[in-house]
């Protein structure tokens, strides 16, 4: 719960001795930095993990489809890796979220309706995939371009909508970036969509991790 303390920890717990302006400024900056870090549900480490997972999951699928002519779809093993890695990210995200929001109450907490919207978007996008197959869509669409990009576009846009309602502009920019990346990736074909989406998302997550780490040090 306490996380790591700064090596230049200034404070002595409960010490209310004389404080010079320089010490006060250092203490204020250090306390703000530590508090922001502890309240942040999306720390750099989590973004880094997400980047590795996205690259691993999308990369595994791409490796299984890159030589398919005509395109048939990802292998069972690649899909298993994809779901396993997605499950790892979900569990890690919940752990970080709980740690950051323990004892915090108020408007920043996710409301049940918001969670329902995102969960519905995520589930319905896969239900819709069944309709595509039922209607005779090619494997390139039903098992390629659509699953590689549509979940990211739909959930990204839904997330952006929720973020703008909260005036959470960093989250708005992040979720919209995901949707834009996925839309661009769709133009790279059924196999290329997995590769481009995976690399671009991982890069975006690395940028987020770096920016967050830099902000936290400032």
């Amino acid at each position, binding site marked *: *719960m*306490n996380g790591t303390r700064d090596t230049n920890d200034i*404070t*002595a*717990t*409960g*010490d*209310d*001795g004389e*404080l*010079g*302006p*320089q010490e*006060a*400024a250092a*203490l*204020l900056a250090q*306390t*703000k930095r*530590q*508090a*922001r870090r*502890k*309240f942040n549900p999306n720390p750099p480490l989590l973004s880094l993990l997400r980047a590795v997972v996205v690259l691993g999951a999308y990369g595994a699928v791409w490796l299984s489809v890159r030589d398919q002519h005509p395109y048939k779809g990802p292998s069972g093993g690649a899909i298993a890796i994809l779901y396993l890695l997605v499950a790892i990210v979900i569990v890690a995200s919940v752990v970080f979220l709980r740690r950051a929001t*323990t*004892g*915090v*109450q*108020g*408007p*920043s*907490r996710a409301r049940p309706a918001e969670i329902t919207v995102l969960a519905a978007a995520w589930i319905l996008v896969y239900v819709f995939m069944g309709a595509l197959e039922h209607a005779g869509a090619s494997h390139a669409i039903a098992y390629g371009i659509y699953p590689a990009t549509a979940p990211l576009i739909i959930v990204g846009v839904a997330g952006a909508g929720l973020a703008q309602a909260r005036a959470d502009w960093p989250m708005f920019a992040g979720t919209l970036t995901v949707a834009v990346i996925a839309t661009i990736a769709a133009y790279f074909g059924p196999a290329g969509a997995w590769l481009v989406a995976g690399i671009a998302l991982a890069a975006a997550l690395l940028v987020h991790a770096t920016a967050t780490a830099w902000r936290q040090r400032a």
Partner: protein
Amino acid sequence: MPTEELDPLIHVPTRLRIVATLAALPDGDTLSFTRLQDMIGLTPGNLIIHLRKLEEAGYVTSEKTGNGAASKTTVALTTQGHKALDAYTEALRGLLGGL
């Protein structure tokens, strides 16, 4: 260096840490007493004493819900508290020559 222009209520290490921690909360959020205690590393008695002083000045607001062992106290920085911390930060900058 003279420190008279610094708000004496905030210019105490423990209270400075309390106010700075609460200021880092997202807008409109409150923090449980136990989490704040955990983050600051104070005994409950010490924390209560400092919170009471801040509350008397209108810098902090606390709310208790429930009874007995199930009771929960949440704490938040008021608008006045945010302004006081901003003024304190500005005063510090002035003392340190804009550093």
